[in-house]
């Protein structure tokens, strides 16, 4: 609502909005000035432009060929809502299965990144690992390598291991990421060293200290990392395109593009597929916006 709220949410990790101060609300009731009118005009124009693809994506998903192909354009399904678009989309591709593939893939990648990052960050911060600076530099450098530059060898590796068209092929290359290690290292650095001393006096080993002390303390960072890696994986396109072959193994992102085949003359059906595919992320953005902000901007604000 107010910027205080945003600041509080981003800084402390509190997802709840803070009510505007009395003074702030008083200011809201100032008379309509020219500047204010212009602000609304600009915002409205922006909203219309930005929301049009969203609107058309939804409304078009109910259109039959007569509406969606109309020239001049038809912006509403005047010839009747065509719910069969949705059943048609579900008949054309195994959408449920592809959803599951996406969930499993993104879930495993997220889990993998959290585990590998926790361990590595712990070694960098709390353990006297030899060549600490070297390892950290290595992890930082790994972030610079664009996945597209190594996609050919990775594809060949999967291909010769006989893993093409399997979940492992989708998941394996992404089980660790320099970003996660970096993020957790920064979080661990902010904890006082006395934490470990106290734990050690209590007789805790490294693993127990990591799991029962550090993990709970790092929840906000872990959540941020989790959201970031889940969404990145969920949205992947190039890699799943290469390593999956059958509709049964494709992720939802690849699946919906397959709806555009020649016989599906009805674009409404294609749009119906996109509607089904974005529902979860759309709900997340509408209702969990504050929650999501931290995860996605984790790289920029800290």
């Amino acid at each position, binding site marked *: 609502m107010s910027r*205080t709220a945003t600041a509080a949410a981003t800084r402390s990790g509190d997802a709840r909005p803070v009510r505007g101060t009395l003074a702030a609300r008083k200011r809201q009731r100032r008379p309509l000035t020219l500047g204010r009118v212009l602000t609304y005009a600009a915002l409205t124009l922006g909203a219309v432009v930005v929301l049009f693809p969203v609107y058309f994506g939804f409304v078009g998903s109910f259109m039959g060929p007569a509406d969606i192909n109309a020239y001049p*354009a038809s912006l509403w399904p005047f010839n009747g809502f065509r719910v069969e678009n949705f059943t048609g989309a579900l008949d054309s591709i195994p959408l449920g299965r592809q959803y599951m593939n996406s969930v499993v893939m993104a879930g495993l990648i997220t889990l993998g990144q959290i585990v*590998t990052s926790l361990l590595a960050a712990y070694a960098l911060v709390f353990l006297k*690992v030899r060549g600490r600076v070297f390892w950290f530099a290595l992890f930082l450098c790994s972030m610079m*390598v664009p996945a597209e530059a190594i996609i050919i060898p*990775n594809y060949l*590796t999967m291909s010769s291991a006989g893993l093409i068209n399997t979940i492992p092929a989708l998941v394996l290359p992404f089980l*660790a990421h320099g970003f996660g290690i970096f993020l957790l290292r920064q979080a661990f650095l902010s904890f006082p060293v006395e934490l470990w001393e106290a734990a050690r006096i209590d007789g805790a080993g490294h693993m127990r200290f990591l799991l029962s002390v550090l993990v709970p303390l790092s929840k906000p960072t872990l959540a941020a990392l989790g959201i970031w890696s889940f969404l990145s994986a969920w949205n992947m396109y190039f890699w799943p395109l290469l390593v999956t072959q059958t509709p049964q193994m494709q992720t939802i992102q690849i699946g919906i593009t397959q709806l555009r085949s020649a016989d599906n003359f009805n674009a409404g059906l294609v749009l119906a597929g996109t509607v089904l595919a974005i529902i979860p992320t759309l709900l997340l953005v509408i209702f969990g916006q504050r929650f999501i902000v931290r995860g996605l901007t984790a790289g920029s604000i800290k």
Partner: protein
Amino acid sequence: MTITKPANPPAAKASPQPDRQTDRGSLRALWYLVPALLVFALFLFYPLGRSVFLSFQGSDLFGRPSGFVGFDQYTRLFTDSGFWNVMWVTLGFTVLTVVPSIAIALALALLLHQKIRGIRFFRTAFALPFAYSVATASVIFGVMFNQATGVLNGMLAFFGLDRVGWLTDPAWALLSVSLATVWMQLGYNLLVLSAGLGAVSDDVVEAARLDGAHGWRMQRSIIMPLLTPQLFFLLVTGTIHALQSFGQIHILTKGGPQDSTTTLVYSIYEQAFANNNSNFGYASAQAVVLLIIVVAVSAIQFGVLERKVFYR
């Protein structure tokens, strides 16, 4: 990964840390690094080496390395006018997506940073594109851009305007793909900038107000400088992101018409995986070029932030 290239925070605060090396089991500590290192070794460093190796090899019918060819692939690359076209397209795409998506997001962020009624609705509205993956957004834009039956040309007809070959006219295609990309990128940029604005202390604003700064002057001289770290971050990550874009091009234009949307990444795909090509050698040479460019851009960022992040 596709959505956002992560980067280190521009404003990581350096805080004094005591020596944390409290354990002598240095070898055992290495075990904690093993899982991550294993993944990196197999799927990052090994393929990196193999990319470079392949770029010095020819390719047989199946794309298998057919022997050392020296710098032949690179010579071919730099003497191929098609490759220079690819580089121009890549540059064009980067500029056309990064600059507008930051500028528009900045304008919207500043507008949204006011205490006015209904702001919550606008905030949600502008964040919506964020829910769309590259694939879903591209499919929707593909339907809208269709030359014969698309809604955009259908709306131009309301105004008596002629059809535009959004994706079929080389003069338009790159613009159209960029437009779709700006739309996809906008939500994220807005979130980052809004968060940055939110962090601007009320005290600073209040002090400026007392000094007589209002409206646009306040935005320009007080608030915008405080956003520099976020803007810099978006510029760097946006550039890297643009350099890696693939889905929208694959879905919307397949690099055409007349190669007007063939970016470097798309060209790699085309040489390696499309049209029964399997020119893995030639594609790998392009991959090495991509690697160098992205590392160079990242290095700029590291250069700027090195002291803040690295040695603490």
